[in-house]
């Protein structure tokens, strides 16, 4: 199929004007964004992200004007319902962590809209944000650096409760102990310091801290990547359990496809800052549309020695996000790339209900 297309292209070469294509694309994108920003908020969704973009300056002039920037997250949109899990997968440098932090406004988004619980929080000041913080929390990848080294577990867990006045002062300890029990931590851990614990237990403490303020949304930024397999399973089960009990919505960021598949309801596949494909778990795993998704799936080693499957091998390395390729950002490694892919940015479109992708190949079918 792919080879045919390449042949067709060679037969009738199309000349692409990069500058014109780029201008047309930007114009179209701007119009679309303005249109989308005016749309009413979905009252049911806990989180709605519209065309989120985050750039970091690389080079500045003396006057502080940015001359070169790194586009960490480029135009991602999705909706998340309460009690649902959205998995974001991608390789290193794809901007998944930045996306997670931009949603929490730990990084101020460059453009786009973040609608949390019916409120547009994109331009909230840090004072207003502080009130909202208790409803959206984050769990980090590294359980070693994410706990303050000089506080006891009890101190770490009661501080947010105290600050946000979740329960009256005299009930804080019992509240924290109950929370610890819920997260599988023993009561005598209360007096201990983080350095006494293994990675898995520390991650439980992090989870307990995030849940201490009764959030509605938790961003899980690679929460199990640093853990051993048997501990990973414990933490994933714990997260699933807590989700059922507290009706939490998760944004689960990971590079491990099998983990994402296990925990998510919806999945977004990111590459170099852009969303390549988005859909429900069934859509993505049973019927992947984008060649990158397919390649990503086939690269995961299968723990079954008999099943030696044929791989879609990706050549080369991931380009630097500071200098992304023109056209489709995946074309440098795509086995099916055509001339068009090198020049024209593919549109991110809905191909099936709720199943989005951005690839030229899909349009031609």
């Amino acid at each position, binding site marked *: 199929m792919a080879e045919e297309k390449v042949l067709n292209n060679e037969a009738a070469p199309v000349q692409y004007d990069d500058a014109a294509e780029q201008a047309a694309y930007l114009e179209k994108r701007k119009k679309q964004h303005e249109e989308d920003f005016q749309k009413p908020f979905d009252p049911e969704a806990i989180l709605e992200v519209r065309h989120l973009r985050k750039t970091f300056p690389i080079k500045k002039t003396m006057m502080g004007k940015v001359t070169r920037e790194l586009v960490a997250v480029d135009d991602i949109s999705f909706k998340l319902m309460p009690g649902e899990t959205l998995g974001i997968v991608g*390789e*290193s440098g794809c901007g998944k962590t930045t996306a997670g932090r931009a949603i929490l406004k730990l990084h101020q988004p460059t453009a786009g809209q973040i609608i949390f619980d019916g409120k547009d929080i994109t331009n909230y000041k840090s004072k207003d944000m502080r009130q909202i913080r208790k409803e959206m929390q984050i769990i980090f990848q590294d359980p070693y650096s994410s706990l303050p080294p000089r506080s006891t577990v009890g101190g770490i867990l009661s501080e947010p409760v105290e600050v946000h006045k979740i329960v009256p002062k005299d009930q804080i300890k019992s509240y924290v102990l109950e929370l610890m029990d819920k997260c599988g931590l023993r009561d005598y851990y209360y007096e201990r310091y983080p350095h006494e614990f*293994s*990675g*898995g*237990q520390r991650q439980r403490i992090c989870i307990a801290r995030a849940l201490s303020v009764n959030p509605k949304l938790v961003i899980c930024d690679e929460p199990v990547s640093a853990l*051993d*397999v*048997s*501990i*990973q*399973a*414990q933490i*994933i*089960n714990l997260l*699933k359990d807590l989700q059922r009990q507290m009706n939490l919505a998760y944004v689960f960021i990971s*590079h491990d*496809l*099998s*983990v994402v*598949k*296990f*925990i998510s309801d919806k999945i977004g596949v990111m590459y170099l800052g852009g969303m390549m494909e988005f859909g429900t778990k069934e859509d993505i*795993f049973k019927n992947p549309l984008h060649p990158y998704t397919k*390649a*990503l*799936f086939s*690269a*995961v*080693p*299968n*723990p*079954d*020695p*008999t099943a*030696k499957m044929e*791989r879609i*091998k*990706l050549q080369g*390395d*991931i380009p630097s996000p500071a200098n992304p390729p023109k056209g489709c950002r995946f074309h440098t*490694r795509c086995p099916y790339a055509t001339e068009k892919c090198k020049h024209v940015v593919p549109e991110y479109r809905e191909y099936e209900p709720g199943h989005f992708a951005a690839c030229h190949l899909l349009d031609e079918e």
Partner: protein
Amino acid sequence: MAEKTNKGYLTGKEIRAITKANAKEMKRLEAYKNRKAEESEFLSEMKDPKNILEIEDLHTFFFTEQGTVKAVNGVSYDVPKNSVVGVVGESGCGKSVTSMSVMRLIQGPAGQIVDGSIRFNAYDYKRNEKGEPIPKAGGKEGEFEMEEKIYDIAKMPIHEIHRIRGKQIAMIFQEPMTSLNPVFTIGEQLDEVTLIHVPGATKELAKAKSEEMLRLVGIIPENVYNAFPHELSGGMRQRVMIAMALAAEPRLIIADEPTTALDVTIQAQILDLLQDIKTKIDGSILLITHDLGVIAEMADYVVVMYAGKVIEKGTVFEIFQDPKHPYTIGLQKSKPTMTLDDSTELYNIPGNVPNPINMPDHCYFKERCAKCTAKCSGDYPGMIQVSPTHFVACHLYDEENENG
């Protein structure tokens, strides 16, 4: 090891006692490590001539102030010629310490090989009485008489280890970001390997060799030879690391989590490369990883380690299709896979790895084991053979063995 006070702290007195005992033990082992010895002292015989490496009853301990950490506590496994042996286990199970012991890279004086033997079938220079290599009659410069020798690495004095380290056995580390020296170019670092390990090697020879190695790992030398490590991506650096490992033509490559820091698509490339290399150099690979998927894809034989001991070993098919030890079974079930039905809860092994200092006398896995029986409170189970190549250390299979 030491009595605990009510609060669970070690008292100063206890710590002093431990420190004193440790100092004595460490001094003895350091002296043994630095002794002068005749070659005959560390020559040995292979149990099975088909093996390239035999580790037998290896004990590597770390002497700390809290007590002795038995990181490797009686580990035995073999690496046959032309095969990939995968060692799998969770962090702290001693899989890396075993490989570091093979390379004699354990950091002294706290870390010491206490007991056991590591026999390695080396293809080394034939040496005259003075211990110098004998040049090959009629050969080119840099060619010497060679012969097969079996060294017992655990008994080798540390200053003799250069015969093996980096030359006969090469190592690939997990962190491609930190394993290369940032101030030298790739070419300089590659050349160095040849210059060190080949007696009489010239710069031209080294460069030719380096370029050959880079080509072998799928890199065009012109682009990379003069580059600095920071100019390369993680995958490229790992390729360079592999090229460095190959430069001295080793018979065994120890790959310690070679793909853990890499992305899946790059991991797939590196794993392919390793398979490819193995056939090209006609050597063996000792692959250490925690990723069962990687093991299943790469290994011929699998060794499962837990808390410093081997609990199961066998061929890859035996381990993945007919696992015997409850830990191996649990490990495989707790890993979510791409094909797994995810409506159910993930199986998990409860609890944590026991504290490495106060190891119980009974099976270390007893506290976390779903199948444990009264017998498990007894002695640590021995290795039981369930098939010619499949061994397991679990009391559940005691009877089967006695009957049949």
